[in-house]
């Protein structure tokens, strides 16, 4: 038999076992393929990894919590070891959350690990998203992966919110009450939607169990599936890299996964785990025992959602209640604009977020593949737009803590709202213009550096008496980074085959002008040559 002839025979027992397994599952082929994948090395490339590791920690700690949590809203009298709640009537869910915190060994630690990991998970996703946006890593061929990543961001918010709602204390109940209010504000279907979601009138007896199913099964399954797609696409597309000598659109410069990255990544997992464990062991998160069991009547001062839901809550807080109008329209039902309008910013922000790669591709007519990243300063419009988006988001997020800003900075709550309302409308534009100006200035600084070199601070007197400062030219590696970048120019509206300029094309042309009219061109070889000549003359060495 031909396939038996060349079979490798191991000489040791472990070798024989390994060979037995390998010939049946083909592990060495997989290792050969993936172990030699190259990844470029840069600290900004590691936030996706942080998110992934946080997710693993979330699953581990969450599994532990499921052993003890009782997602039931049946009423019972607390009889655990937390004295201030002894004898208080509460739901089984809240009682078991207290039980986990005070009577299960390691329970409070695990709860805090789970919650801190959740916060870090979303932080890491957000920072990763910003890195991808500001470096232009979403461009072809990665547009779809940008969308998949955006879905992960939304899913992570859903996972966080459903988890936040589970303990059934006053804080989490207030969050659900807001969701209930927003649902009911939706015209026509709102009330039915709320009744459907809560299994009757709010708060009902069903919602904690339903949220639990969502939180531990459906949303994690969706997240894992999306992560798998996300990572698969990373493998298919290969990783992007920052510009530098020897780095092209056709190669990836870095180390292979095995053994360097496998070891580094494995170690980094434990670093992330360590940071989360350190926080969970030393810093309280969500002190559910302070809030008391949920009861729809009280709302406590300082009631906020976790940070990643803050922007939506903040938009609601920024909306005037009844000024200068009652914000209601009667048209086939009541449209409660005071609740519906604050949902518009979220729709705009997420809409622009998901469509940005196509918007930019349409405006620039750039359909090339990009594996070399932009330095943010070299794409002033995009960087400005990104900072505008981040600013808008942050203003809304800050609005969610308006009461704490008022108490801690000794200003009036109303004034905080007025100032934030101003920045809600104008902040993004101010941030955009400032950022774009900074980018253009940095580009000019780069030009200066390339053309005139580094000022050494060394002043020399020439034989004929003139004083000059010696400028040291950049070395080739540094110069490469500063001169070799994409710098799109305005592409005006083009007539189509029939010689007509369509309305859409006209808009595109105008946008292109907006994007690229102010531009600092990279230094051309001729300019460099001329500058060198000039310097040589100036320093009188010829």
């Amino acid at each position, binding site marked *: 038999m031909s396939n038996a002839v060349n079979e490798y025979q191991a000489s040791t027992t472990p070798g024989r076992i390994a060979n037995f397994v390998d010939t049946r599952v083909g592990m060495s082929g997989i290792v050969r393929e993936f172990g030699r994948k190259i990844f470029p090395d840069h600290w900004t490339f590691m936030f996706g990894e942080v998110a992934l590791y946080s997710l693993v920690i979330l699953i581990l700690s969450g599994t532990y919590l499921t052993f003890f949590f009782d997602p039931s809203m049946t009423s019972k009298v607390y009889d655990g070891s937390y004295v201030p709640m002894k004898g208080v009537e509460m739901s089984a869910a809240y009682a078991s959350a207290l039980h986990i915190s005070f009577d299960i060994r390691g329970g409070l630690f695990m709860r805090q690990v789970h919650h801190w990991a959740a916060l870090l998970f979303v932080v890491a996703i957000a920072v990763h998203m910003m890195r991808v946006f500001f470096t232009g890593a979403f461009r072809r061929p990665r547009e779809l992966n940008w969308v998949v990543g955006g879905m992960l961001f939304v899913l992570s918010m859903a996972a966080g919110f459903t988890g936040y709602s589970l303990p059934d204390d006053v804080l989490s109940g207030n969050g659900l009450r807001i969701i209930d209010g927003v649902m009911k504000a939706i015209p026509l279907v709102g009330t039915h939607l709320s009744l459907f979601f809560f299994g009757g009138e709010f708060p009902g007896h069903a919602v904690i169990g339903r949220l639990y199913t969502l939180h531990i099964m459906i949303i994690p399954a969706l997240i894992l599936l999306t992560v798998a797609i996300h990572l698969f696409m990373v493998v298919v597309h290969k990783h992007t890299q920052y510009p530098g000598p020897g780095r092209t659109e056709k190669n990836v410069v870095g180390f292979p996964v095995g053994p360097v990255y496998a070891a580094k990544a494995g*170690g980094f997992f434990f670093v992330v785990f360590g940071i989360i464990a350190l926080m969970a062991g030393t810093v309280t998160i969500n002190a559910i025992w302070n809030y008391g069991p949920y009861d729809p009547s009280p709302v406590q001062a*300082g009631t906020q959602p976790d940070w990643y839901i803050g922007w939506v809550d903040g938009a609601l807080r920024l909306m005037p209640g009844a000024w200068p109008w009652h914000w209601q329209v009667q048209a086939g039902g009541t449209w409660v604009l005071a609740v519906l309008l604050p949902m518009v910013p979220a729709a705009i922000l997420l809409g622009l977020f998901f469509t940005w790669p196509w918007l930019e591709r349409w405006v620039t007519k750039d359909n090339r593949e990009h594996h070399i990243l932009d330095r943010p300063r070299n794409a002033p419009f995009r960087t400005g737009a990104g900072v505008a988006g981040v600013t808008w988001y942050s203003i809304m997020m800050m609005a969610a803590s308006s009461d704490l800003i008022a108490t801690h900075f000794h200003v009036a709550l109303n004034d905080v709202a007025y100032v934030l309302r101003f920045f809600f409308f104008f902040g993004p534009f101010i941030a955009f213009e400032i950022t774009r100006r900074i980018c253009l200035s940095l580009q000019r600084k780069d030009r200066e550096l390339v053309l005139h070199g580094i000022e050494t601070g060394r002043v020399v007197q020439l034989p004929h008496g003139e004083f000059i400062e010696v400028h040291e030219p950049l070395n080739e590696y540094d110069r490469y980074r500063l001169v070799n970048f994409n710098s799109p120019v305005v592409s005006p509206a083009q007539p189509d085959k029939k010689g007509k300029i369509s309305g859409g094309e006209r808009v595109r042309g105008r946008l292109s002008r907006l994007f690229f009219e102010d531009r600092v061109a990279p230094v051309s070889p001729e300019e460099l040559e001329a500058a060198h000549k000039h310097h040589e003359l100036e320093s009188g060495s010829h």
Partner: protein
Amino acid sequence: MKALSQKRRHPLAAIILLAVALVLTGGLYAVASATNQAKADSEQNYTADDIAAGQKLFQSNCATCHGTSGEGTDNGPSLVGVGAAAVDFQVGTGRMPMQMQGTQAQIKPGQFTDDQTKQLSSYVASLGAGPGVPDKESLDTSKGDAANGAKVFLANCAMCHNAAGSGGALTRGKFAPTLMNVSEEHIYEAMETGPQNMPVFNDANITPDEKRDVITYLKAQESNSSPGGLALGSLGPVSEGLFIWTIGLGLVIGFTVWLTSRSA
């Protein structure tokens, strides 16, 4: 019965009915307000000397705003009937005399000694009956029930003072201060008199025993070390979010920079 129904159209019937109704409501109100009125201080009997000394202090420190005999001016309310408890709270916590007119009197180091505060209290108490300084018995936290206190606190106080008693914002620069490290006496007096923007929780609303339970709960919060570690000001998700974005992310970035510092 028939006689009564026949006379119901008598010209005096309406007047008699009105008189009966007035006597009934008046009587009921008298009974109700007697239970509502905080017990005047029984333990602390103020002497005439106290009142006289208090009057002197009042003339030189308080009269500018509250009037020479506590009748109130445009700048300060009348103090007739506010009782010793209000003075003990406002002066004892340093809120009065106010540093300046503003939305709310700020807490600051007290300006008067305990004796002087007592003298001032006795003078204001002499202007008209009002809630007195609570006795030792109502402040004894060893007799209070923290669990019941938590219930009362979360239902009545947490909406302004925060679930952990760490304070919160009100409209137009007003605020509910933190309740940590406030003395038992001052907490009780605040509930009794409703200083600044706080509502009055009289004895029918929150009984003296429940007031003691609330104090017991707050003192338990104060002395219990936070079970989860650093409490971050007990401010909830905002301080947690700030922590993860600064310290948490800072640590992570530190490690990412370190891990990639010695590559290519």
